[in-house]
């Protein structure tokens, strides 16, 4: 069994290595025709840019994307500088230089990778999936009887911040940086997914399609791991199935199919303010120009935030979204599960958490108010501040760095919910409702707690669950995403996630059940 696992690991690493090397390989030649096509598609008016590309790029063969990319970005920046100087603003290209490089590179690829897309898919994603499954499936037998399977977590280098964890950390951070800021390097990956993308939406794959596909695949494979690890725990099985379903169907498939049907690309479960650009001008325009379905999406999006969130949180707690539906939560609960113990439980972290997450919420709401003001008054500034700059700052700092690079990259070191705990503005909003008006609570079972600390250790949201449980208090915390792991790992059956009446939900008691009844009265009277 161990041998099978090792073979799986080896296959996985081969797939991962090929995947990792792909951005550095490949031959790229931009033909005049392809350049023309991109110029038309992208509506490029800068003849200087086209001219420079014709001189430096067209017809030449580049090995690896980086040489090509530097030519394109320089050309674009030079052209833009020139047009700005001459005040030819209609010729300025507002697309990012690296996005332009990605587009042109995509049109220039040739050779083995482009001619063997399916084979390349198999050598990267295929081997990765097969290897990971071969690595994970023997656990059905190796893990033995049903029960809690946390043996050795603090002995393993992968799960105890050892060198493996640090390697994964570096890899993930680099991957996200590349994806957000150097998309041209993802071009070879996109080729491997062209067949699937064409079949789904009719378009060639872009780097966000690669990301969406990878996201779904990683979640699926790691969900298999969850199913095996928590096979005694029905709550975990049902919950995992739910997040997986919403990721694959709602986040990945439906938007692609909508594109095929000439509808706007939309993830029906992505809720503002997590979906921070929902009210951005270009999105509103696109929705308003898409007829009935656009209007429906507009109403749906607003209703999600204003009606669905409060009603659902009232009945089920924040968990209905954070650990049953949300994509960020879904990745955290599958890929991130081996790292959940790293969230800090200190009071200090809790303080930082409250400042940061509410800060981001204020930022998101403020930015959206500016956006709407600009949209309706058609002025590009609010009180002298450019709406566009605020949006760009948010997209960069929160959308890319916090949610992506830090949110996922930091899993192996700071736990799997860094974004959800410290950054997500939607989580802050859901949390308000959960804290002040919800039927959800984690009930503490009388006096049964032995203060062992398993619950606190494995709470991904850094809640010191034990601090409440050992006092006999229910846990009513805005940050709790209802993952149910504290309840699962408790060796004494102390914790239970429940939706019950509001009355008695918060129950600060001084003396625990099982003690002298009169003493309880005495102490509670005083406090």
């Amino acid at each position, binding site marked *: 069994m161990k041998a099978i696992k090792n073979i799986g690991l080896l296959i996985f690493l081969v797939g991962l290595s090929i995947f990792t090397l792909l951005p550095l390989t490949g031959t790229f030649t931009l033909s005049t025709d392809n350049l023309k096509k991109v110029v038309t598609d992208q509506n490029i008016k800068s003849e200087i840019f086209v001219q420079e590309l014709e001189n430096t790029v067209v017809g030449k063969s580049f090995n690896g994307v980086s040489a090509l990319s530097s030519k394109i970005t320089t050309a674009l920046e030079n052209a833009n500088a020139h047009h700005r100087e001459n005040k030819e603003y209609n010729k300025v290209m507002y697309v990012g230089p690296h996005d332009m490089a990605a587009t042109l590179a995509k049109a220039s690829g040739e050779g083995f990778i482009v001619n063997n897309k399916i084979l390349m898919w198999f050598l990267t994603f295929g081997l990765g999936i097969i290897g990971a499954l071969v690595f994970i499936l023997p656990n059905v037998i190796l893990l033995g009887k049903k029960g809690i399977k946390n043996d050795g977590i603090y002995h393993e280098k992968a799960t105890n911040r050892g060198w493996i964890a640090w390697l994964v950390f570096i890899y993930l951070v680099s991957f996200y940086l590349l994806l957000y800021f150097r998309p041209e390097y993802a071009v070879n990956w996109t080729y491997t997914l062209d067949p699937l993308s064409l079949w789904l939406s009719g378009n060639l794959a872009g780097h966000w399609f690669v990301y969406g596909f990878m996201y779904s695949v990683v979640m699926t494979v790691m969900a298999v791991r969850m199913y095996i690890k928590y096979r005694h725990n029905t709550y975990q099985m049902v919950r995992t199935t739910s997040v997986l379903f919403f990721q694959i169907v709602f986040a990945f498939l439906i938007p692609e199919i909508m594109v095929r049907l000439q509808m706007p690309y939309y993830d029906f479960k992505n809720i503002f303010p997590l979906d921070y650009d929902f009210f951005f001008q270009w999105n509103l325009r696109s929705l308003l120009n898409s007829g009935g379905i656009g209007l429906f999406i507009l109403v749906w999006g607003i209703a999600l935030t204003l009606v669905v969130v409060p009603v659902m949180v009232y009945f089920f707690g924040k968990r209905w979204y954070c650990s049953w539906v949300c994509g960020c939560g879904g990745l955290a609960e599958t890929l991130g599960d081996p790292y959940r113990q790293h969230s800090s439980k200190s009071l200090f972290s809790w303080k930082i958490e409250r400042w940061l997450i509410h800060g981001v919420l204020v930022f998101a709401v403020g930015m959206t108010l500016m956006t709407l003001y600009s949209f309706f008054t058609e002025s590009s500034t609010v009180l002298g501040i450019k709406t566009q700059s605020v949006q760009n700052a948010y997209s960069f700092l929160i959308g890319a760095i916090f949610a992506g690079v830090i949110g996922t990259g930091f899993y192996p070191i700071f736990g799997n919910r860094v974004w959800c705990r410290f950054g997500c503005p939607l989580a802050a909003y859901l949390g308000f409702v959960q804290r002040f008006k919800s039927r959800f609570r984690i009930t503490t079972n009388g006096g049964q707690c032995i203060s062992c600390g398993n619950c606190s250790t494995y709470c991904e949201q850094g809640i010191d669950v034990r601090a409440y449980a050992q006092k006999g208090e229910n846990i009513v915390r805005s940050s709790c995403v209802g993952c149910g792991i504290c309840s699962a790992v408790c060796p004494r*059956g102390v914790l239970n996630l429940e939706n*019950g009446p509001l009355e008695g939900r918060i129950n600060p008691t001084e003396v625990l059940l099982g003690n002298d009844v009169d003493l309880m009265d005495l102490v509670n009277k005083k406090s």
Partner: protein
Amino acid sequence: MEHVVIIGNGIAGITAARHIRKLSNKKITVISAESDYFFSRTALMYVYMGHMKFEHTQPYENWFWKKNRIELVNAYVNKVDTENKTLLLQNSQAIKFDKLIIATGSKPNMFGWPGQDLKGVQGLYSKQDLELLEANAPNKEICKRAVIVGGGLIGIEMAEMLRSRDIPVTFLVREASFWDIVLPQGESQMINEHIREHHIDLQLNTNLVEIISDENGRAKAVTTDKGETIACNVVGLTAGVSPNVNFLKDSGISLGKGVLVNQFLETNIKDIYAIGDCAEQHQAIGNRRPVEAVWYTGRMMGEALAQTICGRKTPYNPGHWFNSAKFLDIEYQTYGWVFPEVSKKEYEQHFHWRHPKEKICITVAYHKDNKQLLGINTFGIRMRHQIVDRWLTEKRDINYVMEYLKDANFDPEFYSRHEKSIVAHYNSIFNTNITPKKKSWKRIFSNA
């Protein structure tokens, strides 16, 4: 300012300290020789098994003590001078007190077995024992087999710990069935099966005779009263614990097995009290034992004594008995009293149900005349403490319990529920016709 000194930073001593701080401004000092900070003894196993690091077993962050003005001293108390109200520490420091709380816990029982002092032989009680086990049994290459002597809660925990590193374990149990001095037959049998499922070599009705040394003074084998010799590298002695009170011998404080106290947790000497594992009641309370060595009772005594020390004299008057444990993968909870066959009262009768396939069962003890509920044991089913406690207080009969059993279920959402088959089994035995009522939040929260 009155100076309250507490010996022992376990759950009993620390609970007392915290509550005294809440109620008063007294000067509080806690002395302990085991660790700088309070930690949860019950979690030691999880550190060895890699579920947690030692720091995770500490329920309060390190700044907590200073902020709450609870002074911590890491030292061993050699002697209590009751006349001068002074403690003499091993480092020859002296500490004066106005009130003294003895909360020194327990120590593992050693029954004078030949070889019990050899290297590789150890109990499992303290942080130091944990460190010793890490040294003695880091992996299955160095520890090729371990023998555990004594079939109680700590014994089975130690077996589980060693198995988590794939170390072969032989488990010597004196009784005919695991822990059958506490558990009724059906349950005890089920645990026997479960222990064996985990590939633990369970030897019932077997006693340790001798531990044999190698040439370096290390244990290399044990012999049993079955005439068997078992080669091993580690011997775990887990035959119960007894109060850790030897250092009090000549202090004038009266001792039995533990420090003798009355219901107010007072010793024979004014201003000196004892709580937790080390306290022994002159007169046992109800069905309880005079020495109660469990987590919860230490905590309750700490809560009660804090009231007394802060001027509201309060007896230790615990409510209904409860306890819980985990046998490998099976969670166990008990409420009220369910006695095993060996010590069952003549009026006590049992209703027992066991799941046909899974390791799940329930035993309900009731009075044979009026059917009054006496206690409930569950294995693999979580029960709602509040509800069972209320049933006991209200002296409900077993028919009522069956009817409202669903109110007491505390298993997580989506788990399969067993009330239907439990009650069906009950009906078939007692010729009753009870249908279990739907779970009702209203009932659960009424007079909560």
